[in-house]
């Protein structure tokens, strides 16, 4: 009898613990759902005033004029431009450093590099933005004789510095996950270390590396503080990489404080948030799709 009672309380405890864990797991889902509802509730009323097409592809962003214009095309182009150029820098650097750390570097150097790259990830973005403003900006302005050093180029470099740790560490994990058997097979067939890296290890890790790149891009496009500080803030479609832009995130951060509650401007900024959310969601879905697809076919016929 005593034994039975003991096992009953044990059972109750199990259930309680399971539910507790379940609650915490669903809490984040719930929070995400609520944020989403809020985002759409505040953003969608804008489309009573203007059409979705005018909003997305309108080229004039004058939210405080009378009458106001809410075309975010220049903001979208600004976000895409800084992200694209940031990736142009961060992708090769991130992947190459991952290859070096995972396959080439001797023990001591490997540890140092890994910790430095992790430190890079921990750098507050406002510090990077400050660096871009007072060091990189003036340097760009002087070297290329520009009206301003706060432009796409500057933002791209800063965002690249932020995306490199993401790309590098996820790629590194993908490279480590390549089975040792593949490497041995390659060496046994008379391949050198570099032939093995290029022809076997990187192709076998490609799905992980692609995921790394896309997550790095998502990181760059969602970054706010750096672009707010160094992208220049001009809501116009850029003509060169030395033009100033105003990415979506910077626009939201800079204007939200001044937009009257539930005004057209306020709704337009939330709608911009929806666009941003859709873009990053797409990046994440693509990353997920790629990593699943390649996993199923064992990297397939690369």
């Amino acid at each position, binding site marked *: 009898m005593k034994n039975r009672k003991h096992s009953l309380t044990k059972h109750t405890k199990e259930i309680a613990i399971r539910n507790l864990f379940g609650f915490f797991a669903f809490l984040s889902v719930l929070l995400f759902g609520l944020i989403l509802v809020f985002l759409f509730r505040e953003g969608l009323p804008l489309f009573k005033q203007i059409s979705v097409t005018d909003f997305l592809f309108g080229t004039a962003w004058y939210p405080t004029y009378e009458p106001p214009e809410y075309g975010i095309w220049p903001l979208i182009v600004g976000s895409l431009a800084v992200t694209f150029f940031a990736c142009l820098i961060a992708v090769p650097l991130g992947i190459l450093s991952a290859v070096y750390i995972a396959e080439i570097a001797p023990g001591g150097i490997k540890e140092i590099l890994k910790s430095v790259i992790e430190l890079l990830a921990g750098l507050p973005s406002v510090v990077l933005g400050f660096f871009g403003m007072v060091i990189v900006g003036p340097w760009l302005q002087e070297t290329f004789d520009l009206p301003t050093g706060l432009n796409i180029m500057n933002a791209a470099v800063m965002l690249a510095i932020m995306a490199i740790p993401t790309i590098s560490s996820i790629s590194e994990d993908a490279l480590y996950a390549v*089975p040792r*058997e*593949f*490497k*041995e*097979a*390659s*060496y*046994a*067939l*008379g*391949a*050198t270390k570099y*032939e093995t890296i290029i*022809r*076997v290890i990187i*192709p*076998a890790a490609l799905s992980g590396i692609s995921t790394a790149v896309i997550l790095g891009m998502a990181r760059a496009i969602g970054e706010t503080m750096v672009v707010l500080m160094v992208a220049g803030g001009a809501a116009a479609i850029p003509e060169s990489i030395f033009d100033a832009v105003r990415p979506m995130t910077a626009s939201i951060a800079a204007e939200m404080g001044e937009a009257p509650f539930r005004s057209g401007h306020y709704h337009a900024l939330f709608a911009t948030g929806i666009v941003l959310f859709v873009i990053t969601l797409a990046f994440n879905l693509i990353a997920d799709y790629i990593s699943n697809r390649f996993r199923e*076919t*064992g*990297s*397939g*016929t*690369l």
Partner: protein
Amino acid sequence: MEKDFIVRTKNVDFFYGAFRALSDVTVDFEKNKVTALIGPSGCGKSTLLRLLNRMNDLIDGTRVEGEILLEGRNIYAPDVDPVEIRQRIGMVFQKPNPFPKSIYNNITYAPKLSGIVDSEEIEALVEESLRQAVLWDEVKDILTKSAMTLSGGQQQRLCIARALAMKPDVILMDEPSSALDPISTAKIEELIDTLKKHYTIIIVTHNMQQAARISEYTGFFYLGKLIEFNATEKIFTNPDVKQTEDYITGRFG
């Protein structure tokens, strides 16, 4: 008749850090014969095999003493490029390890590395290697499919074909059928029997019946030492050393 030894080891010692995995191993491998290396786990037989194509170079903190000669040349001499040695001495591993590439690209991996670019030559080589490995009829219509879609036995024969495409002189096999079912094992054994006409085969096996079935010579290892090396028939019927007999009759190991 003078015997033709293609690979010889002379007083080989091998260390993993401070641990001595092999001591004073001297053994000669005859050309175009099958030599089996047997012994309990951890006895050093696989270590010796991996020394023969310098695969142990890839492990940090190892050290070799003594000489290993391929046709009279010490493969551990400072001026020898391990890549060149590995091109002449192919290897098949315990677990089938085809690349996650197409069947065709698995075979062409080594030839392309060695600089063969002529597509007709490569195609001929693919067919020849797959025929030699008795896999051609099973895969000739699916050459562009991923090697990962093949069965374990087929994958292992693909790995053999991949090594053959390199045109090696010697093929090392490290328990090539231990991960396979009995039918696939029988196929691999048949294959070894036909391959020995053109290649020297050195095979590590846990399976003593397999050693008895397929090899001409057998070496018995115990605790890093070569206890006995003899004609297979002699080892399995009337070994010179008591320890060999004990192992073969199942008294230990």
